[in-house]
């Protein structure tokens, strides 16, 4: 096996990992605060991608700018889903919440299919194929930019959660919803913001992804599954675990594509998942098992 090829794959994976991290952090945030499994996560991501695609096609907006708008739109969608649907079943059995989110996922995916058609799309950018050589390996410029932006967004989220009052209330509600209520938090509002923020993360990830890889309505569910794999591998409820897990899985997938077969790269993350479920169900960075 050619070491340059492996180094190239690892680098590509690392740079792509920012997107995986961002979507996993969004999922982990929603789960951590409300204990709700967002099965529509990947479909929300696809909507982020389509928004970026439309903004680029209609207004010539670069996805590396428009991801802010996409995040905003998805934030609104997240708040809507939380207020209108999830908020009503927070006390229902777990499987009911999962079925509800499965319904939301079906609606989002197939609405995209009806509106945009089944063709795969990709947001075109002027520098789409720009690369920089770094010794024997090259750096794909769009990947580098998404990586830096994803890192920045994760940092902003960290500051929001640990420095702002609303962020701290969110963590308080995640820890003990009743306790947060007792000290005067508007838990309903905190939940809405938490769901919105999680959706905004994945919306931004979708917008950034649209410049790197082709997407279609059908790519939503696989992204949901990948997000879950990452969150479980990293540790359910741990934001740092989700972030590092995203990079880990992206690198592993890219190496797997080179070492086994390109079309089998998803298999790598599933095998990682099964191993984690067997030997360390609390995840690599998680404190306790779900």
């Amino acid at each position: 096996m050619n070491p340059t090829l492996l180094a190239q794959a690892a680098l590509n994976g690392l740079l792509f990992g920012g997107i995986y991290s961002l979507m996993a952090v969004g999922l982990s945030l929603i789960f951590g605060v409300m204990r709700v499994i967002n099965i529509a996560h990947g479909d929300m991501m696809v909507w982020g991608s389509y928004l970026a695609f439309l903004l680029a096609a209609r207004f010539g907006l670069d996805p590396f700018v428009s991801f802010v708008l996409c995040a905003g739109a998805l934030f609104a969608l997240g708040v809507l889903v939380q207020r209108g649907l999830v908020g009503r079943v927070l006390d229902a059995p777990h499987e009911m919440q999962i079925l509800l989110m499965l319904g939301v996922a079906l609606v989002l995916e197939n609405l995209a299919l009806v509106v945009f058609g089944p063709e795969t799309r990709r947001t075109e950018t002027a520098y789409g194929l720009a690369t920089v050589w770094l010794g024997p390996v090259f750096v794909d410029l769009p990947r580098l930019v998404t990586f830096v932006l994803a890192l920045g967004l994760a940092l902003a989220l960290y500051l929001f959660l640990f420095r702002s009052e609303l962020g701290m209330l969110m963590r308080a509600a995640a820890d003990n919803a009743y306790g947060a209520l007792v000290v005067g938090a508007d838990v309903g509002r905190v939940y809405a913001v938490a769901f919105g923020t999680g959706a905004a993360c994945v919306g931004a990830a979708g917008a950034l992804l649209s410049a790197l890889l082709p997407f279609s309505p059908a790519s939503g569910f696989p992204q949901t599954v990948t997000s879950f794999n990452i969150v479980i591998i990293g540790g359910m409820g741990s934001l740092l675990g989700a972030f590092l897990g995203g990079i880990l899985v992206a690198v592993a997938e890219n190496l797997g594509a080179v070492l086994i077969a390109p079309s089998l790269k998803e298999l790598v993350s599933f095998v990682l998942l099964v191993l984690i479920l067997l030997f360390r169900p609390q995840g690599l960075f998680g404190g306790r098992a779900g």
Partner: protein
Amino acid sequence: MKWAVALAVVVLLVLPQLVGSYLLTVFIFIFFYAYLGQAWNLLGGYGGQISLGHAAFVGIGAYTSTYLAMTYQLSPWIGMFVGGVAAALLGAVVGYLGFRFGLRGFYFILLTVAVAEICRLLVAHTEALGGALGIFITFTGDPWQFQFSDNRAYYYVALGLMLGATGLVAAIETSRLGAYLAAIREDEDAAEALGVNAFRTKLAAIVLSAFLTGLGGTFYANYLFSLQPNTAFGIPLSVEIILRPIVGGGGTLLGPVLGSFILSPLAELSRIYLARGGWSGTHLVAYGLLLIAVVLFLPRGAYPHLAAALARRRRRTS
């Protein structure tokens, strides 16, 4: 209620003599999805262990019997049971992994999704099984090859599958296994405290459920005449399987049947009128909305409400 069910069975038995071949197709789908839903119901409805990867068992069953028929000329009537056993083995593996390590709720769902996806990817990369393009079965019309030129034969096979599975689940419902499963669904820790071996009970449920689903795979293959990894192992089929028991009423004997009588004709109608008009995907939007509505307004499914309404009427008339 008993009389109503008996009457319904008699009507279904004579129906093929009265209606055309196309309508029979609709009924075949109703019976077949009711059958798969009933198999799922055993684990998901009675046991409360939601599997979102049941398509894997359909796929294993379908590919096993088809491969045996193509390579060794083994009749699918026998291959069906080999496929069922293969699916049961896979079910045992999933159950062992999931239940041994106490994966509950969401973790178990994800494990079932992951296993189904692994199967899909592996089959898509196996040339002997047709790879990503899948297998096309040539039609011979030979009943020994599980192929019939008369739609009515498929009708009776599908009806038999549905009635058989419902009869089996009826027997399990009142058995020790059924009681244990319900206890685990309601409160696993309390059930264990009372001496129920939750691991063994859930394992039995998933093995039986996978076996039944695997049997159905042979019907799936020989009714559609084609097998593709993306459809036979895919999430959409898994979603189809779980929707009917949930809409009809999970953990009730007639829930999957009722759910299939509600949903399968709807799916067929929307396939005809919406998909043909370039509106593919619309019926899945409707499924999604229906699922949301059921969770919000009918969390126990349609059957308990129907039963209550029937009971009220009976009280009024007597």
